[in-house]
């Protein structure tokens, strides 16, 4: 019997520590939640925040380290850490938004925060996965939590509709993903990402079984990131779900899904990019165009933001279609800016929502600037950043992705993308028009009594400006994170990074 190697064990535990902390946190919240009444759930939210910050600190400590655990099932590198950090930050903002929201809507807090954390665990698992099974487990853990969260307002028909729709279509996507994994396993005899990418260098590269497996995998991810034509669930699910959950879906789920999507396709299947790049080209063009055109006619702001989220997935797919380390770095940076900007926009939506009168129609934003100049001001900031107006985070992200795509010669895709940006300006600016140039609208419940929401708004606004104005550290970090993911890949692929 082999001797126990203590050093190896402690080393293999280190990479999963952030995951373990989040898992344990979720259980702590569940246990403590038994003793907390639903209408006094603020303390539970605060506890969740503390636990998340603990996980965040620990993950921060992992920055720069790399290694594998559990025989390659988990691989930790800067790519994973970057996503873990971004996911944790986003979830923390979602929790901040929920603290006052949950008691107001009679949401049972313990389950709510626990599910949020379990779902987060799933996302982080997808970011750190080293094989397809772990990706699948993370995918399911993330999704099931969000299915339940979407339907959390039990007595609200729309919320139930959101949950059912999301669940059924989500189950489909899971099926596609799993079938894809099965086919890939059938073709290559392995589920390890590194081994699959090695197989691609050999004669298997054009194996139809492998390629159809990849196709199905792509469909599974396209569902989760809401890419056209697999986006149909998005508007209904976003509209019906409780708004903090919508924010979580728009940002968290997207981060988790893109983490795995990028790692599989842009890192491990990089050598086969000729096979999937053109598919993503088409999907990106469709996603951007359809998302933006549909957003034009929306009257509900959550639906508008849903279509805008679809469009933004399209911009990210432009980067993926470009393939290559520069595009990868661009996508990571884009996701970071997108996370803060979108969370901020949803936080404003929450600020305007009241029990009974939903306040999520665009017409409810009329005259907001006169009544709450600060709220209208930050909303303007977020909307302009989503439009891509310099010098905000959204602009730099687009700039980075488009320049990467241009460098790979995708001029037409970039032209489609920039035209889409102009189209998007139309509907984002419509909200600004309502806020500044029209009268009437809904009165938000007093903001003074909602310090957590104000904190979330402030953080999001500062980040939106800072990431855009001083992009250096984040861009460098994103690029470094992306290239670090190549560390585990075959030497030929590692050469690409330089």
């Amino acid at each position: 019997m082999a001797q126990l190697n203590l050093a190896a064990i402690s080393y293999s535990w280190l990479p999963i520590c952030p995951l373990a902390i989040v898992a344990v946190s979720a259980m702590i919240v569940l246990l403590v939640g038994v003793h907390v009444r639903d209408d006094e759930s603020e303390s539970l939210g605060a506890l969740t925040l503390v636990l998340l910050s603990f996980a965040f600190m620990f993950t921060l400590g992992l920055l720069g380290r790399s290694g594998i655990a559990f025989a390659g099932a988990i691989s930790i590198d800067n790519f994973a850490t970057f996503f873990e950090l971004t996911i944790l930050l986003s979830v923390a903002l979602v929790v901040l938004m929920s603290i006052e929201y949950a008691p107001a809507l009679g949401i049972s807090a313990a389950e709510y925060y626990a599910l949020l954390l379990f779902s987060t665990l799933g996302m982080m698992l997808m970011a750190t996965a080293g094989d397809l099974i772990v990706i699948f487990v993370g995918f399911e853990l993330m999704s099931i939590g969000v299915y339940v969260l979407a339907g959390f307002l039990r007595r609200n028909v729309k919320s139930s509709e959101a949950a059912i729709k999301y669940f059924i279509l989500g189950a489909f996507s899971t099926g596609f993903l799993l079938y894809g994994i099965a086919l890939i396993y059938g073709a290559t005899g392995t589920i390890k990402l590194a081994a699959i990418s090695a197989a691609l260098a050999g004669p298997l590269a054009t194996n139809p079984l492998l390629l159809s497996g990849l196709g199905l995998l792509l469909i599974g991810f396209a569902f989760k990131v809401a890419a056209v034509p697999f986006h149909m669930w998005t508007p209904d699910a976003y509209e019906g779900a409780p708004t903090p959950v919508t924010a979580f879906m728009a940002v968290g789920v997207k981060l988790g899904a893109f983490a795995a999507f990028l790692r599989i396709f842009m890192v491990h299947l990089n050598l086969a990019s000729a096979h999937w790049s053109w598919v993503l080209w088409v999907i990106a063009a469709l996603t951007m165009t359809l998302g933006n055109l549909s957003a034009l006619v929306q009257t509900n702001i959550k639906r508008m933001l849903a279509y805008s989220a679809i469009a933004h997935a399209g911009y990210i797919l432009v980067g993926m279609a470009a393939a290559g380390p520069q595009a990868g770095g661009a996508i990571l940076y884009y996701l970071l800016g997108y996370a803060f900007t979108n969370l901020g926009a949803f936080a404003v939506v929450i600020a305007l929502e009241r029990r009974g009168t939903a306040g999520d129609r665009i017409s409810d934003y009329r005259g907001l600037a006169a009544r709450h100049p600060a709220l209208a001001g930050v909303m303007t900031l977020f909307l302009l950043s989503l439009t891509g107006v310099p010098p905000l985070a959204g602009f730099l992200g687009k700039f980075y992705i488009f320049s990467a795509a241009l460098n790979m010669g995708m001029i037409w895709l970039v032209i489609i993308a920039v035209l889409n940006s102009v189209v998007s300006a139309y509907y984002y600016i419509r909200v600004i028009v309502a806020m500044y140039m029209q009268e009437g609208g809904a009165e938000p419940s007093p903001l003074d009594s909602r310090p957590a929401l104000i904190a979330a708004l402030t953080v999001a606004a500062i980040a939106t400006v800072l990431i855009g104005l001083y992009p250096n550290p984040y861009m460098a970090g994103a690029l470094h994170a992306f290239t670090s993911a190549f560390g585990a890949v075959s030497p030929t692929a590692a050469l690409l990074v330089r």
Partner: protein
Amino acid sequence: MESYWLTGLTFLPLLGALFVMLQSDDRSTWRAAAAFSFIPLAISLYLLARFDPHQAGYQFIERYQWIPQFGISYHLGMDGISLFLVVLTTLLMSLSLIYSGGGDIGFRAREFCFFMLILETGLLGALLSIDLFMFYVFWELMLIPMYFLIGIWGHGNKVYAAFKFILFTMLGSIFMLVAILYLVHLAHVQSGRLSFDLPDLYDVRLTAAQAKWLFAGFAIAFAVKVPMWPIHTWLPDAHTEAPTAGSVILAGVMLKMGTYGFVRFAIPLFPLIAIQATPLFMALAVIGIIYGALVAMVQPDLKRLIAYSSVSHLGFVMLGLFALDPQGVEGAIYQMLNHGISTGGLFLLVGMIYLRRHTREIAEFGGLWHRIPIFAGIFMVVMLSSIGLPGLNGFIGEFLIMLGAYLTIPLTVVFAVIGIILGALYMLYAYERVMFGPITKAVNDTLSDLNWREIGVMIPLIVLMLFMGFYPKPILTRIEPSVDAMLSRVRTAQARQENTSHNTALAAATALHSTNQWHSSISPQ
């Protein structure tokens, strides 16, 4: 030799914008805003005094790293082309803020000043940026405050006008962004150095097709802003519905951003294409001159008339620019200043009469000369300057432009002269209907003449009109070296192409080859 003058010039208005938001009442708001607009004015005048007229290159340069991964630097500088436009910007901004404080803006004064000062930062930043990325940032930055100015404080169909304005200009500038990115990419491939710095991009070797598309990308952005016929349709709406201060800045400075973009970026970056495109642009300019004048003639609304006269006047500027000879280009830059001063003045005057009568319909007036002579007198001087009467500033610019245009395509001058005659016709006709004849409307009999604030705002403009009409030398001598440097770039490019036409093909082939090489090195498939 590092100095921080240009940074101060650019960002003090932004600081002022934040400061203004802290004010509690309207009175202190207007004071703070005016004070903060005086600082850049003072700085720009100081720089004007210190400017070395014999130097063609950039002066007062500041340069720092900003986003090194992309070769983007914080790079500011000022040369003879931008110098006077900067002074014009700071001057018009101060004047319109002082004017607006006198009752033109009735509500939300704080936000108004906030947006005005941000706008000033955007305008100055765009004029002073040497780095293309920075230029684009400021270029887009100035849209947002102008959009709010029109949409909130405008008149009539203001939201529609604001929307049209922002969509037109965004659509134009987005192509410039693609062109910038692609140009930088090509430069990177050729030189191995990633840089958004304008001087680094001058000598990129381009195939004819590349140069054509890239030039088109820049030209669309600038032509929308100028605006050139036939993409001028946003202008009459935006100008007419904007508040007075907005119209002044829009006409006085923002339109010049388009023509400035041609001189600074589009022409020197793609000289060969600019030469090829000369007939096209001169033709469009001439159409703009005549079309603008004809449409202005039938406008019942005074402000709309001035808006269309801008289309005509900017046609002159474009005519001079694309003459691509020293007289033409210098005249064009001179005319940019003239148009800023005289049209800015006209918009201010229309604002003043609108404030009194709440209408701009020419038919509503008549006989004002008897009732408000100071207004009528000032209006006459400004109008004559706009027409281009000898002895006033407009004449010098138009004369130089026609001289330049004659040397390039003589026929255009014929149309330009027709444009001038038409210009005199519609301006004088409108003036006659507003000022002379009997007073037909009773309300006009009770109008009050200009107050001291309004006279004070107009005096600097009138002084400038006279000064620039009689003594253009100090201005032209400062513009000249930079224009000559720009034009010599065009001439050398032309000469190089003529001498070695077959070598160009070779170079293009090499460039293409290196592109492929670079591609294959990054993604072997």
